């Protein structure tokens, strides 16, 4: 998901925590702090909701060491160098039984022009294929037609001996901003697993780190009801990021240091999907509004949303009953219908136009490529 969706998911989680904490501690302690004393505790949810990407893109990316770096410029374009380096790294990982990392740098020509090249892992024929592409213009990636190289200068192949497990799209584009890096891990006899952008969604996207960061809540508010509320906001806000990412394909490494591999995602959606981002944000904004209304209701007795279903329960209902039934009603009346109708409409249009869905491999690569250089955040 985009950084904005994570931020909003964190805020939404925070509003749920404050409503529940307000019920748990009673006497509107939490609601008073937020509404009357202007406490900013809810923002913690947003901050820790976006933090996993902040950690990865501001720190983890730079702590990644590379055994090989391929750094060409416009005057020394050499597709063979790229193919040979990757093939060598794959075999080295298998032979030396250790992780080997390779960084492929982009080729910058001017402030807005880049030379594109592609790398393809042909796992069946055990080959790495590199093709130097055209010069492209900035973020629109429009190719300059007269910038293509002749085939004999643009294409190269190199063979490797190990069995490669590669779960992304066969073709990786290296073009703007920062290039991708690959990690090759030995996995049994002559077998190597390739990970794309290995520093992403590892320890920074883990349940473990969420637990470790949560005590910051006590540092901010002490061991008070607000401190405990902040503790849960930080932990659950952080986890909301991991959970939201998990609806995609790539998943995260959930429990380092006990686990070392990424657990694959639920494959429900694609992180770069406009629709998925819009639905997530719509859902979050509406839930935030409901929860704020719930806080106001607890504090001042004003229910601006006045859900229809509540009238069936009569007047003598508890706050928790009001909250649960009201929330159900709200979801059924206001959250689900626009999502279902627009989804059906978009699906129908896509079917009519014959829009091709990406394969898992293509989507996984696209998801990764979008995130290089923080494009996705």
């Amino acid at each position, binding site marked *: 998901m985009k950084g904005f969706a994570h*931020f909003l998911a964190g805020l939404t989680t925070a509003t749920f925590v404050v409503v529940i904490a307000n019920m748990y501690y009673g006497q509107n302690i939490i609601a008073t702090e937020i509404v009357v004393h*202007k406490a*900013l505790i809810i923002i913690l949810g*947003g901050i820790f909701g976006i933090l996993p990407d902040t950690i990865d893109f501001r720190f983890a*990316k730079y702590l990644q060491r590379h055994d090989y770096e391929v*750094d060409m410029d416009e005057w020394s374009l050499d597709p063979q160098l790229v193919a040979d380096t990757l093939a060598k790294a794959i075999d080295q990982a298998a032979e030396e039984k250790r992780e080997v990392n390779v960084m492929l740098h982009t080729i910058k020509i001017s402030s807005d022009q880049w030379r594109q090249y592609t790398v393809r892992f042909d796992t069946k024929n055990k080959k790495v294929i590199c093709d130097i592409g055209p010069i492209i*213009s900035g973020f629109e990636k429009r190719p300059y037609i007269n910038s293509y190289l002749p085939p004999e200068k643009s294409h190269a192949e190199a063979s490797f001996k190990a069995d490669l497990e590669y779960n992304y799209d066969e073709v990786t584009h290296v073009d703007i*901003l*920062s290039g991708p890096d690959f990690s090759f891990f030995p996995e049994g006899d002559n077998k190597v697993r390739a990970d794309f952008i290995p520093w992403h969604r590892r320890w920074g996207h883990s349940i473990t780190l969420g637990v470790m960061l949560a005590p910051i809540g006590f540092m901010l508010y002490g061991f008070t009801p607000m401190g405990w509320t902040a503790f849960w906001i930080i932990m659950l806000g952080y986890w909301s990021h991991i959970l939201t990412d998990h609806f995609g394909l790539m998943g995260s490494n959930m429990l380092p240091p006990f686990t070392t591999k990424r657990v694959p995602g639920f494959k429900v959606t694609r992180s770069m999907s406009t629709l998925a981002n819009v639905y997530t944000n719509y859902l979050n904004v509406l839930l935030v509004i409901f929860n704020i209304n719930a806080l106001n209701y607890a504090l001042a007795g004003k229910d601006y949303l006045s859900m229809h279903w509540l009238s069936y329960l009569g007047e003598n209902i508890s706050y928790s009953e009001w909250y649960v039934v009201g929330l159900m009603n709200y979801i059924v009346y206001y959250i689900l219908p626009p999502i279902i109708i627009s989804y059906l409409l978009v699906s129908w249009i896509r079917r009519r136009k014959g829009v091709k869905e990406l394969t898992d491999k293509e989507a996984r690569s696209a998801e990764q490529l979008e995130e290089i250089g923080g494009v996705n955040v």
Partner: protein
Amino acid sequence: MTIWYLLLCIVFVLIGALIGSALSMLPGLHVYNVIGFFLLFYFSAGLVLDSMLMVLMLIGMLVSYAFVFTIPSIYFSAPDDSTMFILMPSLRYLKEGRGHEAVLLIASGALIGVLAIVIFVPLFMGPLSIVWSIVSTHLHWIIGAVIAYMLLSEFPKDFGRHKNPLHGLKEAWKTILAGYLTFFLSAILGLIVFNKTIVPAEHAFQSLMAPLIGLFATSSIILNLISKYEIPEQNIPKSIDTKPKELLHGAVAGSSGGLFAAFLPAVTAGVGGYMASHGFAQKGDKSFLVSMGASRVVYYVGAIALFFLPVLHLRRGALAMGINLFFTPESVQQFYLVDMGIAIAGLFAFFVVVYASKFLARRIYKINPKTLNLIVLGIVILIVYFMTSWQGLLIMAVATAIGLIPVLFNSRRSHCLAVILVPIWLNMSGISLGGLFGLW
């Protein structure tokens, strides 16, 4: 209401739109500054004009400004706080001979934004008022969250070439820290400007003009002066060659961002627009330019629509506050009159933008960019001097220095918006920092 009165209303909307269009061509001049003078004149003339006609004329000026300011932003690289986000893609377009195309994309977004206001604001009258009742006691943390997102969503723009991890971290954080420094300094400047009237008392209502021009316009002009570039011959396409999906995506995102900004205090069109572009997972320059056009119009014009909206009457933006000095919206009829004025002025301003852009696109390449930028800088300095005196020039110089930090370190220019966001946020959160700077 007679047919003659209705016709008179249309005439005043068009007069306002004409004045607004002409003044908006001047780089650096914000419509709110001009409206301030109009209001002063109106009050000193003893309110001789029918107040509704005056309101419609001012609305005509605002709507045309929201459209026409695209011209100086793109051709003269003199943006304001809401057009600074379009500067990068539009300058790229201009350098590729596609300046007119960029203008058309922004103007299309703006036109759809006007349609969204005219059609959807009346439709969502009820829900908007409910949402406002709910969130109005939570604005302190909502604006705080906007600030937190601005600070946390910037990521390093390095190209991955590092000697070692420490070197990599240093390079990456250079950009981020420059952004934070910009935010911090802009916030301090904002606190000073909001709490102490540095410009002469008679110009006090213009006190934000100098810092905003310094942060966004003069810093861009100086960057243009020190960088080498040529403006090539501009292509004038017959159509914008955009997929309906891109147009729709940009317009919906921009309108949502603009409405968000119009709804909340301190949040401006630029911030609303870029948050919406993240929220709607926007891709590509075209959709982005459309969204920025829509966001800007919905922000400025939507604020006025929300002010006249029955059951809400939300005062956002200098125009709503200015109008409220002599006019209190009371009836649904007034709202629909304003809605009509917005639609007419929007349509008029759209054609002004298209023809003005065509006119400039045919000639701009003949002018040396350095000469052009020097002329624009001269105009901006003169405007600031006449509106805010030498004290304003001093504030502008300080703001320009701050505005140059993100430009030189390649960090986000949106951090400059701390000049408005932080003082208002602190005020809403009940935090008083003015004492730190000896302001009271």
